[in-house]
């Protein structure tokens, strides 16, 4: 079946985006393999002088890199980080994050919209992390975002789809791919999001904090595929206050 995820014209078969944080480098590869990942996020940080090992050495070349702007507290800082990230020569994708809230790490939609406009004009493929506010989502779209990445719950919390009803509204109203980022803690939650029609799911902490990283990576891959197929199929109706037999009445018991 031909069902590609298309972001700014690029086609992807995988609808699961991996976050690379909190893993020991030598696990990254098995996660990528187990989850058939095609896109992975990275962060930027000061380089060490000694030629210490670099995460790029652990990521197959065919993987699309999605640098994030984590650490940015304003649009200006995010733009600065995005430009440096592009200078590293790994493409135009940028996962835009602007966060100035230290406890719940809630994104600043206002600053994110500003930065989206600047970066989109500079040719970046901007994938903004956002709080799932329909009005903000429309403005991100107008500002040139390639996707929107609403949170399900606070970053790293594994609390799940607390924003589910509002993500469904985004899917209903926004024509860009809606990718759930942050908060998804289990494969069933990733599956539920996909069933509701989101284009893709991103996870990092859910895998990094699981008991077996390779198994959990595989679990997420399968759950995302399952949810996508269920969405394409269309879910069955729900009966409210009754039941409906799955078997014919076995008539020979009647007499």
């Amino acid at each position: 079946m031909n069902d590609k995820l298309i972001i700014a014209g690029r086609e992807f078969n995988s609808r699961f985006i991996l976050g690379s944080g909190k893993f020991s480098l030598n696990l990254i590869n098995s996660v990528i393999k187990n989850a058939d990942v095609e896109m992975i996020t990275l962060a930027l940080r000061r380089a060490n002088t000694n030629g210490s090992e670099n995460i790029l050495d652990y990521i197959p070349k065919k993987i699309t890199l999605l640098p994030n702007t984590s650490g940015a507290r304003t649009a200006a800082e995010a733009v600065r980080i995005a430009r440096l990230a592009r200078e590293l020569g790994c493409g135009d994708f940028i996962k835009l994050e602007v966060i100035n809230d230290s406890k719940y790490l809630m994104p600043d939609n206002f600053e994110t919209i500003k930065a989206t406009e600047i970066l989109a004009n500079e040719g970046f493929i901007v994938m903004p992390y956002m709080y799932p506010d329909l009005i903000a989502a429309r403005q991100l779209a107008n500002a040139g975002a390639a996707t929107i990445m609403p949170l399900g719950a606070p970053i790293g919390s594994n609390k799940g789809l607390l924003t589910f009803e509002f993500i469904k509204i985004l899917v209903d109203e926004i024509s860009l791919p809606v990718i759930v980022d942050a908060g998804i803690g289990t494969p069933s939650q990733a599956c539920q999001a996909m069933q509701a029609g989101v284009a893709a799911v991103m996870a990092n902490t859910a895998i990094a904090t699981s008991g077996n990283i390779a198994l959990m990576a595989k679990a997420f891959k399968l759950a995302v595929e399952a949810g996508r197929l269920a969405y394409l199929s269309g879910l069955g109706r729900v009966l409210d206050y009754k039941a409906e037999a799955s078997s014919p009445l076995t008539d020979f018991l009647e007499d």
Partner: protein
Amino acid sequence: MKVNGKIILLQKDINLFDFLINNNYEISKIAVELNKKIIVKAEFKNIALNDSDSLEIVTFVGGG
């Protein structure tokens, strides 16, 4: 000169490229900001450093 927040003294006249090499930076895996301005790799050799400069040298790490 300030490099990634730390003060160092330049022993001699040196250009950016040589400085990075001498300090074992992997050119292919870094991006450089000189006094808050991004420097493209092609320019590294043409840029002379001096003690008033502030250099930021960044690379990718794991992140979500």
